[in-house]
């Protein structure tokens, strides 16, 4: 298990680097894909590992985006500093919200996170003096990364910057989910009633997972705001929360490389279909999602596992 996870990370990284050389015109698409993958990974720590569903995860993504944008607008233009602050702010927000979220069952969680999402959206909309309301925030400039690399038009800096963030998130989550803490989370997912019996502090574990997950989502949001020089309400909206759930499901929830592939597949599909038919591409997305649930049980990762098993059985 451990080996396959680490093993899948290297080919993915190589594929990303190959993309840089093979498709130099698609760097912005890759960048958005890396950001979404990091966001999807943060969400999957909750759904895939701890078994906590949420329809409001974009709240943290958006908080990170606004934090980074506000920092840059008020003079702190170095992106990595922005990332760290976004991590702390979003993590803190998640910590404050844990008590509301970790109580109850899946249904109440879905409703509560949905409600928090709507509240945050409206709050950001009303706080025009801070967030620019419905117009979004674009009145800031980003400095060079670490004072060295300027964000360029072709998106090369943004490409490596977001890839670096994704690699860090990937490695951190891989380490985290294979640690005893990760095992405890899986225990909670499988049987939440039994965990206290073996002395595991369930709500503290969930609070930790939720805080980490929120913090990472904030980092992903911050990268988006920094690389696109823009923060807007949609970044905390429901659609983004729903999308991240779709990406995790498509990729295979609970599998780190699977979720990365899911995010990649989802963004590629969106881009390709919307280029083919700017009007009817939703139809294609819908069909693929439905097919993936019926045909690929366990998502892309599940499909891979099944394929490997079959190959082995034949040999």
């Amino acid at each position, binding site marked *: 298990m451990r080996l396959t996870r680490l093993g899948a990370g290297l080919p993915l990284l190589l594929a990303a680097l190959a993309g840089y050389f093979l498709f130099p015109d698609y760097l912005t698409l890759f960048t958005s894909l890396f950001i979404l993958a990091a966001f999807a990974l943060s969400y999957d720590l909750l759904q895939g590992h701890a078994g906590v569903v949420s329809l409001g995860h974009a709240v943290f993504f958006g908080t990170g985006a606004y934090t980074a944008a506000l920092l840059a607008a008020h003079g702190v233009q170095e992106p990595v500093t922005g990332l760290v602050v976004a991590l702390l702010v979003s993590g803190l927000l998640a910590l404050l919200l844990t008590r509301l979220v970790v109580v109850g069952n899946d249904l109440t969680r879905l409703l509560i996170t949905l409600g928090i999402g709507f509240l945050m959206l409206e709050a950001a909309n009303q706080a025009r003096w801070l967030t620019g309301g419905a117009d979004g925030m*674009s009145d800031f400039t980003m400095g060079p990364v670490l004072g060295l690399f300027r964000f*360029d038009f*072709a998106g090369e800096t943004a490409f490596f910057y977001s890839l670096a963030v994704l690699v860090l998130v990937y490695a951190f989550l891989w380490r985290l989910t294979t640690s005893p803490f990760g095992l405890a989370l899986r225990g909670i997912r499988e049987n939440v009633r039994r965990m206290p019996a073996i002395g595991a502090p369930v709500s503290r574990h969930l609070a930790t997972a939720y805080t980490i997950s929120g913090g990472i989502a904030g980092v992903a949001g911050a990268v988006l705001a920094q690389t696109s*020089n823009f923060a807007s309400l949609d970044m905390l909206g429901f659609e983004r929360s729903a999308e991240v759930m779709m990406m995790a499901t498509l990729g295979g929830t609970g599998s780190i490389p699977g979720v990365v592939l899911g995010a990649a597949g989802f963004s590629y599909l969106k881009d390709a279909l*919307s280029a083919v038919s700017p009007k009817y591409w939703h139809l294609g997305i819908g069909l693929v999602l439905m097919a993936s649930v019926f045909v690929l049980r366990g998502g892309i990762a599940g499909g891979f596992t099944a394929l490997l098993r079959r190959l082995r059985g034949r040999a």
Partner: protein
Amino acid sequence: MARTEWHPGRVGRRTVLLGASAAAGLPLARPAIAQERKLVVGVVLPLSGTFADQGKNYEDGIKAFQKVNGTKVGNITVETVMRDDQGPASGDLSRRMTQELIQRSRAEIILGYSFTPNAMSAASLLTEAKRPAIIINAATSVITERSPYFTRISMTLPQLSASLGQWAAKSGIKTVYTIVSDYAPGLDAETWFTKAFEAGGGKVIGGARTPVSAMEYSPFLQRAIEAKPDAVFGFNPGGDVSVAFMKQTKERGLTEAGIKLLVTGDVVDDNLVPAMGDALDGVISALHYQVELQNPANQRFLSAFREVAGANAVPSYRTVQGYDGMALIYHALQASGGKTDAESIMNAIKGARLDSPRGPITIDPATRDIVQNIYIRRGQRLGSGWANIAFETIEGVKDPAK
């Protein structure tokens, strides 16, 4: 070709790769006749989701223009590449689409942006890439100041609401109650109506701000009626929301209470009129276009539009904006003598005069914003249906916010 512009003097592995692939394609890529060339106009519109109908309107306008005028300007073939930005809830997507159009599709001019955030998010990108962009709709005043490459072909809300405020004060209306949607354009509308109306001697005696997607206006209208103003000024984001607003003003009996209704023209967009029906009776609105305008340019536009969209289709003011956006691009290409670099195009655009279906329009060379006639219209019966009929023209209106 364009890549080297952004990285002068830089020779990296990718440049080598690119050079190699370009060399391989060279015998095929060389054009047959040296002067003939293609110009890509990148079009960014909401083509899917809630606002897809708006995207369709602009698209019809763009197609209608090319139907009348062909695809060639001199020896330049103008080709459009459309991308979907999915409406206002996706600001960063419109930026990415713009970047991809410039980089992948080699777009030299951008036309699009139906919503303010979408235009705002692309601003710094356009400045960096030095690509002229024509705003097809986004109406918040400040946008054109965000990039020197922006030009607006649509209108600004202050243009409409200040014209209406000015007219109201002049026509004997003394007191007004305002009902606007609670978001940036709504606040713009409220501010500029109030300014112009009070400058003309009127008084705004109260107001309400309603949630952007609200479908229930009875409580706000009730409060308005109790305030006993001479008129109510309304603004909301169009579509179903505006249909609901208009119908409820009728149900609540605004007219019976002796209160006039004033709205910006986008609220009673021509293509919403059939759904509003008799709620339109006597409603005063201000807009920069209407179907019934009598001028040769409008006749040409309408016949081309009906060829594209069907004989019974009703164009929106948005359709005209799409049509005029293309007209401005053609005009610029002619005026620049076929030069397509950003400076030549921008110089040709600044101060451009066009014979639009909405009447004569000019681009203010200082602000790159549109100067145009604003028509004051009254809703009345026309044949078996209802229509907004212009009864007064305010000529050459600039954006009052600049």
